């Protein structure tokens, strides 16, 4: 194949960072972190893919069929769990921050500094 998946991975990372930097709403910010995370999915996926090979599931095919890299897919599974858990905590923080500060705009939070 080509280098397009890597370019997409880089783009997702940068786009997500842009969203975090410019965010005016903490829930938006948290979702943008999810976009950064998906950059690592695309990168890992591209690294584990093998042209012309099949998925590493040997139910209906002989066990010696050439398959794509299962290690990377296992890493991605872990990665997805990490994403959803981190986002759950961050959303919880955002909800509680709204309770305490009355706003979700990071520009208006100024309880700690210096």
């Amino acid at each position, binding site marked *: 194949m080509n280098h*397009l*998946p890597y370019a997409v991975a880089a783009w*997702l990372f940068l786009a997500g960072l842009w969203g975090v930097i410019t965010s005016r709403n903490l*829930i938006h910010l948290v979702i943008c972190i999810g*976009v950064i995370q998906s950059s690592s999915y695309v990168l890992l*996926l591209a690294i584990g893919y093998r042209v012309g090979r099949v*998925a*590493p599931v040997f139910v209906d095919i002989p066990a010696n069929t050439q398959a794509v890299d299962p290690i990377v897919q296992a890493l991605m599974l872990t990665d997805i769990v990490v994403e959803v858990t981190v986002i759950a905590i961050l959303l919880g923080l955002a*909800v509680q921050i709204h309770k305490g500060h009355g706003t979700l705009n990071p520009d208006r939070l100024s309880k700690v500094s210096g």
Partner: protein
Amino acid sequence: MSEYMLQNGILVFVAVAATAVVLTRDPASQAIVVSFYGLLLGIMFLIFQAPDVALSQIVVGAIALPLMILLALARVRKQGPRT
């Protein structure tokens, strides 16, 4: 190029959808866009021969995550801005 049209196409879709997620500033609409994005990622995993990951991405990215976002939004809405 045409050889990998399916792969290239879904990659471009994912990139565009991610940009849309970032640029959707209203969290309520963003929850919908992000659910669509999760689905796209799942399809991409299928195309790239990763059915395990695709299944897990679809249950997480298209169901669990948007659900949590909507619930968080609902709680925030209920509180309303503090005066």
